């Protein structure tokens, strides 16, 4: 119930507000139409806007509006009528005034026209005079130009004739010149031909003489060559004979040498065989007697020179290159002494090899 109450209340409030707004709208709308009538508008009384039905409001509004419009239109019509009458009077006055002014102006204009026409006529006459003078001047100038042209043409013709004459003279001079040259050339050629002939003759003479000299020389050279060849042949023959003899001698000598060498080789081989055999005997025997010291480290090496008596007995031992280890060196020396006498070949040549020789001792 309470809500409904608020609804009704608010509905009522809304209608009042709407009326106010509509009125305001009507008032403001009138403002646009005519300002000067605002003061005369009846004031809108809000108290009259009691709670009404909305349709009633609209109807009332329309009715009021119509009354207002009618009143206003009547006023307007009245005002317009007054204005028109006033305007008509004013226009008549103005028209009369204008007609007077027009008449005055027209008179002025006619005067001016007359003056202007007189002036124009004078000007035309002056212009025509000017025109005539110009024509005359023009004709005069043309005449002058024609004369000048004729003079120019005559002068040109004269110059052309002069030029042709000059050209003719030059051509003639050139002809004379050419003729001169031709004659000189002919002379020169004749002279040259003469000289050539003389030269030919001289050369032929020279050639002839040279040929004679050459033939003579050839004969001499040939004679010399023959002489040399003969000498050479003789020398060669002599050398060949000598070489053949030498070759025969050399062959004989080589044969002998070869025979000797072969014999020597056989002997050398025999001796070498013996030496090798006994070297091996000696090596085995010395090795057997060699007591290597415990301090004999790998890498030691000593070289001994040994001399023997003919029977192989050790005559002397000399360290010629020490191992650096005195005990090792001595052990090698002792080995050689202990192995004495060493086995040596009986062949004197092979035995000679063992007269003095070298031992090297290495621990391993």
């Amino acid at each position: 119930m309470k809500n409904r109450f608020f609804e009704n209340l608010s509905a009522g409030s809304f209608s009042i507000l709407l009326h106010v707004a509509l009125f305001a709208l009507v008032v403001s709308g009138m403002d646009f139409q005519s300002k000067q009538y605002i003061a005369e508008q009846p004031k809108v009384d809000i108290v009259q806007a009691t709670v009404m039905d909305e349709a009633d409001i609209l109807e009332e509004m329309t009715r009021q509006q119509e009354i207002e419009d009618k009143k206003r239109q009547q006023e307007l019509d009245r005002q317009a009528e007054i204005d028109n009458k006033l305007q008509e009077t004013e226009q008549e006055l103005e028209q009369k005034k204008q007609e007077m002014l027009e008449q005055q102006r027209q008179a002025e204009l006619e005067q001016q026209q007359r003056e202007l026409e007189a002036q124009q006529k004078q000007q035309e006459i002056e212009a025509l005079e000017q025109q005539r003078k110009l024509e005359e001047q023009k004709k005069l100038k043309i005449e002058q130009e024609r004369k000048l042209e004729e003079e120019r043409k005559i002068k040109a013709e004269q110059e052309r004739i002069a030029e042709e004459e000059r050209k003719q003279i030059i051509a003639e001079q050139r002809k004379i010149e050419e003729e001169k040259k031709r004659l000189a050339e002919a002379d020169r050629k004749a002279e040259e031909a003469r000289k050539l002939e003389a030269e030919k003759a001289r050369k032929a003479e020279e050639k002839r003489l040279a040929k004679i000299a050459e033939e003579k020389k050839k004969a001499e050279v040939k004679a010399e060559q023959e002489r040399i060849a003969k000498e050479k042949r003789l020398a060669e023959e002599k050398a060949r004979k000598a070489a053949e003899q030498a070759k025969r001698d050399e062959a004989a000598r080589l044969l002998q040498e070869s025979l000797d060498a072969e014999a020597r080789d056989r002997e050398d081989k025999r001796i070498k065989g013996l030496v090798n055999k006994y070297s091996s005997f000696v090596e085995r025997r010395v090795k057997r007697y060699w007591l290597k010291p415990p301090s004999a480290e790998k890498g030691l090496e000593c070289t001994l020179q040994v001399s023997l008596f003919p029977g192989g007995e050790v005559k002397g031992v000399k360290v010629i290159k020490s191992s650096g280890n005195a005990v090792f060196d001595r052990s090698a020396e002792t080995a050689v002494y202990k192995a004495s006498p060493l086995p040596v070949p009986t062949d004197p040549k092979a035995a000679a090899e063992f007269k003095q020789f070298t031992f090297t001792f290495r621990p391993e």
Partner: protein
Amino acid sequence: MTQKWLKIAASIAVLLSWQAQAELVIDIVGGSEAALPIAIVPFGNQGPTAPVNISEIITNDLASSGRFDPLPKRDLISDPHEKADINFKDWRLLRSEGLLVGKVSTEDGELHKVQFQLFDVYKAQQLAGMRYQVPAGGLRRLAHQISDQVYQALTGEIGVFSTRLAFVTVVKNSDGTKRFALQVSDADGANPRTVLQSKQPILSPSWAPDGERLSYVSFENGKPEIFIQEMRSGRRSSVAAFKGINSAPSWSPDGSKLALTLSKAGNPEIYVLDIASGKLSRVTHNSQAIDTEAVWMPNGKELLFTSDRGGRPQIYKVSVDGGRAQRLTFEGSYNSSPDISPDGRTMAMVHGFKGKFYIAVQDLQTGILQVLTETGRDESPSFAPNGRTILYATEHRGKALLAAVSVDGSIHRRLGESGTDVREPAWSPLRK
């Protein structure tokens, strides 16, 4: 043509003559490593007979080295005592390379004049010769010194006959108790002197590099304890008596430190003791394994030791400053008790094979291992100071005794078969 032929012929002739003149060269490669024959003539004696037979000691020394073959006495063709008496030709017939002669004279039986001369028989040259004056008590040692000189002159190597051996003897008393003695003898095992006696075990003697002090382990106080003892004065001091094991002392090459095995931290580890300051530094840190038997490399910077860190005893190398140990032995399942040659190249050790224990050497460069002995109950190898021989303990007919083998395994001998058990040998350094 002719000239060319002549030239060729000439060069052939030159070549032939050069060949004829070139001296014959015979190469001898190899030779024998047999013992060197030497004639040792008994020394002449003037005045009262000397208490020791010098030439006999020398003969034994040289023969025992395996490098000499002394001529039997009966083959000596004459008995010269100095160069004037020698007919070298005669001695050459016997093929002896060296000839040693000498004489001893004394007036009072106490001060002895001794002289010797060694000759190269084939060159008739003297190789060595000296004169000495010594008291009777010094004659044995002098004989060994002469052996050293002969050895060096003929082999080129240092002789070690005048060095000493340290070892421990064990005598069983009739009541079943044992008597232990730390002894020092000549290098031939003769002339033993007792350094220390105890009813409790004595172990691991180690020579100081000066040859004047010994370090060892003694149980005399009921537990293993390490001592240092001066040889001349007999003064001794305990240097390690920590809780647990104190064992396996080894002198550093400069004599300032001892490498030890101590279990004071619960497990046997290698330590280094600075002798002067008593300061200890631990070298190994392997609580799972036994690390023991350290020996110094000659450079003084590394130690060799035995460890079972790999499951079985093997030999390792470690820096004295500690760090990672490098395993050296890979052949066989048991290798222990390392010793190192003076040149640092060869390691001696006990090598186990099928339940038996042998002395072996390993070349540290090539890693090649060679077994030197055949006895099968060998222990405690110790290098001679010339690196040629290894002394070790072994058993023969139920007796513990000492034996020596050359590094190449070619020469074997037993020492001092006295009837008592002998163990824990240590070869002394060279006498200075």
